[in-house]
């Protein structure tokens, strides 16, 4: 394990070193490709500016995913309860994913203005599909025998949902939410570049014509770090809220010692 960490650290260090060397020896214009050291410098020097804009973008991503989760959950439950609704709406769901976001984004900005609203709309639109599909799937894949068992206990449709199907769908919801982190980052930047007054996407769009390339790279670095952290946070929440999903992982993290079965 320690060796593996060492190896990946060495690879990253090697890549950064090669990049640094290339910018110095290769004679590349620093406005075209800044050295890693220049990016690090920009991170420190522009920290106030970067932070200010990061908070805006992080808010758009976080809130956008929140909106997408809420909509996807409501939609998944509705479709789960009604076969008619499922048949009627499933093609529309797939359709929502074929909307060309880069074309729609400026239209949404023109309609909703430069504020938070169009960003939330775009992030939620992009994230909705990857969340709703695994959630519906997890709800539908609940063991038919388990449903039969609940019926033999006289459980109502709602009780079966609350006691069996909803908890069973939790891992599906988490899978979708984790996937959506990657899409949300991309969507938020796209939305900001389509028209905004702040945010990291806006900062990058401004930094390039101002020849502040290092600042643009710093912004990208911050955004990637944020996406990775958000993904890790969701994975952690999943492990706390749905630990049965990966029993091996739970056992590795810390197994309760169980008393010995007196009947064995």
């Amino acid at each position, binding site marked *: 394990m320690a060796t593996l960490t060492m190896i990946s650290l060495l690879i990253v260090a090697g890549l950064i070193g090669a990049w640094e060397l290339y910018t110095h020896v290769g004679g590349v214009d620093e406005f075209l490709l800044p050295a890693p050291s220049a990016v690090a410098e920009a991170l420190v020097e522009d920290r106030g500016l970067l932070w200010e804009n990061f908070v805006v973008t992080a808010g758009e991503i976080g809130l956008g995913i929140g909106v997408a989760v809420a909509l996807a959950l409501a939609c998944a439950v509705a479709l789960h309860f009604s076969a008619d609704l499922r048949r009627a709406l499933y093609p529309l769901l797939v359709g929502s994913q074929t909307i060309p976001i880069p074309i729609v984004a400026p239209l949404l900005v023109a309609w909703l203005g430069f504020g938070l609203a169009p960003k939330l709309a775009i992030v939620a639109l992009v994230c909705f599909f990857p969340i709703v599909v695994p959630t519906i799937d997890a709800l539908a894949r609940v*063991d038919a*025998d*388990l449903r*039969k*068992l*609940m*019926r*033999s*206990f*006289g*459980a109502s449709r709602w*009780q*079966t949902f609350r*006691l*069996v199907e909803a*908890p069973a769908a*939790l891992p599906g919801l988490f899978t979708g939410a984790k996937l959506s982190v990657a899409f949300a980052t991309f969507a938020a930047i796209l939305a900001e570049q389509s028209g905004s007054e702040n945010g990291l996407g806006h900062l990058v769009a401004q930094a390039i014509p101002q020849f502040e390339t290092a600042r643009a790279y710093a912004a990208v670095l911050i955004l990637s770090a944020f996406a990775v952290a958000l993904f890790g946070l969701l994975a952690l929440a999943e492990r706390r809220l*749905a*630990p*049965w999903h990966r*029993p091996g992982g739970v056992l590795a993290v810390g*197994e*309760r010692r*169980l*008393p010995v*079965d*007196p*009947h*064995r």
Partner: protein
Amino acid sequence: MQTRIQAPETAPATRIEAGGVRLEGVTKAFPGRRRGADEVIALQGVSLQAAPGETVAVVGPSGCGKTTLLEIACGLIAPDGGTVDAAPAALMAQRDLLLPWAGALDNAGLALRAAGASREEAREEARPLLRDFGLEGFERARPHELSGGMRQRVAFLRTLLSGRPVLCLDEPFGALDAITRHEMQAWLAGALAREPRTVLLVTHDVEEALVLADRVLVLSPRPGHVVATLEVGAPRPRRRTDPELVALRERALQELRA
């Protein structure tokens, strides 16, 4: 064929309200798997009676409609023909079907939750049973932390806690290894002695049926119908080597081969 589909002419011999089961000439067919295929007749004129507190076992080859019979007794599916007169029944399957996210206590209390009890009420009611049936200390253990035998015990307690007078056990120990299966049969016999219920036990293990049941019905291959009824009078607790059981076992196996 011993039985034909017909309306019962005699008055019910079992008192259903006290927890008995009476099936008369039950028939069930399923549509064929492929389009245009003939329908599959699962059960053809099966009659079965269990007086309150009796254990009736049904043995037969795979695919003879044993599970269908239990689902009909539980009211999960309707028969095509015949009459069903059964007190409320709860089903226990070969697969334990425990909820992976719930501890043993909450799994055992699932039927109570389904009946509208709060989590606390269900736990309160399930706790003493877990203690009495050798699962003390495992209340919070999730299914993957339990052995196969313990999981089946939790599943059985869940069935028991449904409060239904009739328990329909569908090959409850079929997924266990031979040693654990023998242990669980003894455990179940003890559990039923403490908590008497009417039991319909479906199994392909003739010995299991003879050790546990008051009466054993032998079903034919599909379409399933009763080819023999064996009364088991041996006193409990029973031993596999009991001469009566050995003789009955030979008879049952003979009927199954016929």
